[in-house]
Each structure stands twice: as C-alpha cells, then as structure tokens.
C-alpha cells in the first residue's frame, strides 16, 4: 500500500498561473481532505470530501477548487495563483477519525 500520494513535491508558480495538485489514496477511504500549512502555523482545512461526488468548503477555500470523481483521487486546483498561496499543501484521507497524510507539496508563488 502506497497510502496517500501527492504530486508534485515542489513547484514554483508565477502570479496568475494555474496548477493542479494531485492526491491519490489506495486505502478505499471515503473521507479526503486538503490542508495548507503556513510557516509557524497549524494546518488549515481548504476543502474536504465525504465520498465520490461530494465536496465541501473548509476554513480557507478562497482561490481553490476541488473535485472528487473517484474514491481514490482528490485533486486541488489553483486557478489564479497569488503570493498568499505560497504554502505547504497536505492531502489526507480517513476511514473515520484517524487521518493518513501525504508527504506534502511545497508551493511557491512569485
């Protein structure tokens, strides 16, 4: 089992560019989550999903979009990158309470 995988590991974007952060899990978990972590701060929930076809906003959804067409995949889309989106992004999945995390994507927007 690979668990939760995220690609890419690192990315530098110019302001206004768009990109998709990929997240895949092979544990057949219904729940999936996207977080961002800014330096010295805790994780903030961007979006989450309770199952294929169902997504909902978290604390900080502005500037992001998600989709969940399959149980395994939960991509995060940034449409118009802004410097405020410079952060480390974590994807996680869970069956119920325990969340399993991916390795993270370090994104810089300049």
């Amino acid at each position, binding site marked *: 089992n690979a668990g939760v995988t995220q690609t890419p590991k690192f990315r530098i974007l110019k302001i206004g560019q768009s990109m998709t952060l990929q997240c895949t899990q092979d544990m057949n978990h219904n729940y999936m989550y996207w977080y961002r972590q800014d330096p010295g701060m805790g*994780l903030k929930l961007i979006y989450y999903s309770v199952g294929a076809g169902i997504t909902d906003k978290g604390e900080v959804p502005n500037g992001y979009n998600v989709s969940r067409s399959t149980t395994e995949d939960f991509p995060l889309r940034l449409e118009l990158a802004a410097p405020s989106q410079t952060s480390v992004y974590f994807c996680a999945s*869970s069956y119920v309470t325990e969340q399993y*995390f991916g390795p993270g994507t370090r994104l810089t927007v300049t």
Partner: protein
Amino acid sequence: AQRVTQPEKLLSVFKGAPVELKCNYSYSGSPELFWYVQYSRQRLQLLLRHISRESIKGFTADLNKGETSFHLKKPFAQEEDSAMYYCALQRGNYQLIWGAGTKLIIKP
C-alpha cells in the same frame, strides 16, 4: 470560537527528563482530541486520541474539561521523541482544527 492553542513553539528537555506538551482548546460541544506527530523526514501521523485512553510510545494525554486542556506527557524523554507535535480537535464530518505545533527537542 473553536480553537486549539499550543502555547510553546519550542520545548527542549534532556534525555530522561519528563516532558509535557501543552494543549488548550475552545469548543462548545463534547470535544474529541488528538495528538499527531511528525518525525524528521516522515509524514504526519496519529500519536494518540483521548477517547482510547491509551499510552503510545510512553506518551499519555488526559482530557481535562474543566481546564479545557489535553496536555501530552511522558515521564522519561528519549532522543527518538524529538519531533513536531500537533494537538487537534475534531468537529463535524471528521474535520480537524489544529494547533500551531510544538517542536520537541530531546538533548542527549
């Protein structure tokens, strides 16, 4: 407001000394609390949850509703305990609210 506070960004103790990482929360309902840990070059992972009342790697945490705290304790620190520790509070749909984390350094 729902909030988790970890007042110490950094905690440094000697090997063999007791460790206490503080976590305070603000939540109107009945809280479910967790400690997650991230060792160097590893992924964030669950350490323990209050509801299971277990001891993992020698760590325990007791929920104190009166003081709204969920401090993580270990009587004798080991060098391998050095890591980032995050306290988290669960709300609906298994969403977690996270503290900012405490970096624990165990000195030899």
